[in-house]
């Protein structure tokens, strides 16, 4: 009887240490295994890699233009299995900035193991995140990245700036797309085809998805624009929605699926 408190204590310790020990095995055994998917975006103009060094590019209409800025957000990444089930990756907000090569690569972690046959992502930022307190926005969402409008309009989802060089005089163009309120919401989702390939996500295996982003498709989609005729959009507008619809439809294409990038 005298020993009871001691054995009780002992039992508690046993339980505690058992819990601590099993905490380690938990991930490996009882939870479904997860892997990651590496994304590599390549900003292109047609078949050429986009450069910000003054290189002139030619559109199908014969206009020539240079690009000084090309940035956009990729967020709300979803991966779909062949049975139609979908994994939505939380808290993925990536600012792809052509001027910062490292920004074109990112990895989505904690993806449940499986064979994925589809991918989609928002080109821009969802309304919940963009309505957040700008002073508390972390990382790529922070207003210091200069992808944010003041006064209640939220993030700039995509920014293309440059100069049309086939006009005389040359004509600067500035295309900033954003806006989260209907009917002028420019939040669009791109669903580039994997072209029949699968992303085999396994524990310890990181398939890689190479995605090309073609600047020309901003002008050339359901609505045709010339670069010189591209409306200077600096706030939510009907033209912004048209441009966003264009780039959602055709800007992104999967160029390679690598089963394991590690």
């Amino acid at each position, binding site marked *: 009887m005298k020993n009871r408190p001691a054995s009780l204590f002992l039992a508690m310790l046993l339980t505690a240490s058992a819990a601590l*020990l099993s*905490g380690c095995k938990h991930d490996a055994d009882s939870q479904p295994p997860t892997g990651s998917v590496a994304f590599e975006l390549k900003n292109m103009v047609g078949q050429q890699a986009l450069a*910000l060094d*003054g290189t002139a590019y030619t559109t199908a209409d014969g206009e020539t233009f240079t690009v000084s800025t090309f940035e956009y957000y990729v967020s709300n990444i979803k991966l779909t299995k062949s049975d139609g089930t979908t994994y939505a990756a939380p808290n993925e907000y990536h600012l792809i900035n052509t001027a910062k090569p490292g920004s074109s690569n990112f990895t989505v972690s904690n993806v449940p193991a499986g064979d994925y046959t589809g991918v989609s992502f928002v080109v821009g930022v969802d309304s919940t995140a963009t309505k957040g307190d700008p002073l508390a926005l972390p990382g790529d969402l922070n207003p*210091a990245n200069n992808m944010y409008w*003041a006064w209640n309009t939220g993030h700039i989802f995509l920014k293309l700036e440059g100069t049309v060089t086939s006009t005389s005089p040359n004509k*600067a163009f500035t295309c900033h797309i954003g806006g989260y309120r209907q009917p002028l919401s420019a939040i669009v989702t791109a669903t580039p085809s994997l072209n029949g390939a699968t992303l085999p996500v396994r524990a310890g295996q990181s398939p890689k998805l190479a995605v090309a982003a073609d600047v020309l498709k901003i002008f050339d989609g359901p609505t045709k624009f010339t670069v010189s005729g591209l409306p200077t959009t600096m706030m939510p507008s009907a033209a912004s929605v048209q441009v966003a619809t264009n780039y959602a439809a055709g800007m992104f294409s999967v160029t390679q699926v690598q089963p394991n990038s590690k």
Partner: protein
Amino acid sequence: MAQRTTFASWLGILLSAAVLGVASCSSGGGGGETPTPSGPTAYALTVPAGFPTPVIPADNPLTNEGVALGRRLFYEKSLSSTGTMSCGSCHQQSKAFTDGRALAVGVDGVANPRGTMSLVNVLWSTQLTWDGAFTTLETQALKPIENPIELHQPLTVGVARLQASSTYPALFQAAFGTQTITNELVLKALAQFERTLISGSSRYDTYMATRTGFSADELAGLQLYTTHIAPGSIRGAECFHCHSQPLMSSNYEGKFFNNGLDLTFTDPGRGGLTKLAVDQGKFIAPTLRNIALTAPYMHDGRFKTLEEVLDHYSDHVQMASPNLDNNLILGINDPPFGTHMDLTATEKRQVIAFLQTLTDTNFVTDKRFSDPF
């Protein structure tokens, strides 16, 4: 007694098992090392609300001892060939770490081609100096020390002077665990101090946090600052594109702009480094925090007052300047006959009223940043 022994040993086994369990969970290790009792202590950096998370190099973490040493070195005149100047001679706290001159002047009285830059919030700068010649504070600090028209002394000479002093070996011991002073450690300490020069308590910051405290003019100025012109319908001043919030600079984004000062460039700026035609005449957009304290303005100090700066952006931008920033090309407030931004006298006054709210008196009087000698 027997019972007690058993209990105690059980306890020991269980505790070690639990510890093992915990230890094996932690990935990447780092355990096992006992901290040196006399090692440097971590510096508590206070990041203002809304500022980006700063990136501090893993090989130069901020420590109280390192920052204190860096502060001393920042004001240490034996790092100059004449023993008359230090970093703090041109980077004066009362002027938000500038010198009030158009062009910086070194120990031999020779003027530099450009003006002294403010060190305000330099912690967030991914591109340093007017043209982005450096990307880390550790590499940047060597240039003004050794440059013949700045402090004009090889750092190794300065290091030898420090090594021979009665005070510095012990301070390096405290900061870096060695009494052997090297160029690298001097630069690391200077960078640590510079990273603490955070200004985020201006009236603008109070306004952003509370949305109160601004006069009508200041508020109108903030709106002009942050508004892109829709020619014919929305008037703006376009400032925020380059001087981006909350740091009010382009240093964080690391971007360079031609703001239309000249038609041809005596100083090619960024283009002098990259040799690209598209970079000719481009400079970093420096922070506007404490801008009322950092006159004169522009890389060559050509404008003496904020009024002259506003006149430039409003009325005198060289619209045919190569690589002129798009926002200045397109930002015409009075189409179809206007040819420039064309701010009214009232609008200019309002923007300046707003810019004055960026003065941070706490920052320029903070004892932690002052000359310790």
